[in-house]
């Protein structure tokens, strides 16, 4: 009996291990394909020039800058609102029905499909508020989509601050806000920033919410104001791989764009990790 059970255990664990190897293999094949085929396309020219000849030649500079501008716009909305809401939830809110409703809304907002945020952005920002298809509309749409992530991440950061920090300040006669400002926020901000930058990284790679709120098919100049349309890396990749008339011909550009997009998203992730590390060290002294 025992030997059979041992064989069963060995086979079972082996099965689980194979599951893991499958996932790792998929990731490896993905990355290998993009890095090997995209890497040969990347050059200083590719990164610094506008597309030429009906987008079959030239670079992706406007798309890089467009993604940068719209991500900054997203940050302007999502970072303060996310942090403030998290401060309310973790520091002020008591267990009431309203608090439960707020938490439930946040969790459900993070499950709303990105294309639905796009529809919402078209109606509210593009049409009702008359921002048109623009950086402003697209950034606000992405900002709203990012909000649940930034709130959740910021709240997690606040939760890690021990209660004794707050109590110490309150015992010395500080008001609640003073206690939060001097004894909670300085220690929580690195974590809050880390979480929000991770949220921004995800927003930078999103396509569906910007399809109809501001991304342009082809715009070889940089946007000059918030009410201009823009090119964006994810949208450019979509166009290059499905909508272009010479799909095979522009495939290298698509690979290059995919590599730059992935590098940008991971660059942001790395930035988040570095921010956390740096600020932690600073406040430890």
């Amino acid at each position, binding site marked *: 009996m025992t030997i059979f059970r041992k064989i069963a255990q060995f086979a079972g664990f082996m099965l689980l291990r194979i599951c893991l190897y499958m996932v790792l293999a998929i990731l490896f094949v993905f990355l290998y394909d993009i890095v090997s085929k995209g890497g040969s396309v990347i050059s200083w020219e590719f990164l610094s020039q506008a597309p030429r000849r009906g987008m079959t030649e030239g670079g992706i500079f406007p798309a890089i800058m467009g993604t940068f501008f719209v991500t900054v716009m997203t940050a302007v909305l999502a970072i303060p609102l996310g942090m403030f809401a998290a401060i309310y939830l973790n520091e002020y809110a008591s267990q009431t029905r309203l608090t439960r409703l707020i938490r439930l809304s946040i969790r459900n907002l993070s*499950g*709303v*499909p990105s294309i*639905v945020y*796009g529809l919402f952005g078209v109606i509210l920002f593009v049409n009702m508020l008359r921002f048109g298809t623009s950086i402003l509309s697209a950034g606000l749409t992405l900002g709203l989509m990012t909000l649940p992530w930034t709130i959740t991440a910021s709240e997690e950061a606040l939760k890690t601050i021990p209660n004794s920090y707050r109590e110490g300040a309150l015992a010395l006669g500080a008001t609640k*806000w003073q206690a939060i400002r001097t004894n909670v926020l300085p220690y929580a901000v690195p974590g809050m920033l880390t979480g929000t930058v991770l949220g921004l990284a995800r927003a930078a790679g999103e396509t569906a919410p910007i399809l109809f709120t501001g991304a342009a098919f082809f715009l070889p100049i940089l946007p000059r104001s918030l009410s201009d349309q823009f090119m964006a890396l994810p949208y450019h990749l979509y166009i290059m*791989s499905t909508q272009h008339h010479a799909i095979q011909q522009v495939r290298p550009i698509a690979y290059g764009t995919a590599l730059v*997009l992935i590098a940008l998203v991971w660059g942001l992730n790395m930035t988040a990790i570095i921010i956390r590390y740096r600020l932690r060290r600073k406040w430890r002294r």
Partner: protein
Amino acid sequence: MNPRILRNLRESAIRAFFFANGVLAVIALLGIFGILLYTAVPAFREIPIDEFLFKKNWDPTSPEKVEYGILSQIVSTLLVTFGALLLAVPIGVGVAAYLSDVAHWRVREIIKPIVEILAGIPSVVVGFLGIVLFSPVLASLFGTSHGLNALNGSVLLAIMALPTIISISEDSLNAVPAAYSEASLALGATRWQTLLRVKIPAALSGIMAACMLGMGRAIGETMTVLMATGNARAFPTGLLQSVRTMTANIAIELGEVPYFTTHYYSLFAVGLVLFIMTFAVNLAADVILNKYQEREQ
């Protein structure tokens, strides 16, 4: 004024300010629903709701007979979603079980960020890989002219749902009290038997919630299915057919439709149906997770 009163006043104002930010989330959720509803309703002045939901044909620009039936899109969405779950659930739970029960903690610490990397790949890149990498393989494997079909979408969505399923399943496996597995091991069961008959059943509600969250993701995913499933408007009859999901339909048509026409409103009605479907799935997952956490406390 008395400085104490002034101080209290300021404190209340600060509290009110943060409160307003918290309430914004509720307003946003209600706002999204309200605006979708408000924009979708005009569509139903011309399209009967039962026709909209249960007719197969979607052909808003037909010169002869305009039709607004989304049944084919709903079935396509569900086909691709369940195809994805069929692949992602066993593999995802397997990886979670491996990480929580078999792997050395060092391996676990290495694998976790790698799974995060998988979660961080933008959906448009996954769709691109579906076109350049998976579709030729599927085409030669099944002898079809191209591989842009429901199966391609299912495989890609499964990959995208994996990080969610893995991390939440692993959390709930880890949350099973150690006493459960200790009792089982003390009775002479092997680690494999303990995992299969004690830990997984004990963590089942969390695993179910993980799968539902993965399902919500898959239903609402847009770019990947738009790029990889072929976008044929026909009613799907199998995984090797090109299909058009609800999300893809919105993405394809919203750019070309004139504003404030029945066709325009009907696309928002599709969005509303999508919103309700994902909301229901996510809410269910939430309820399951909460019940589970309450029991643990």
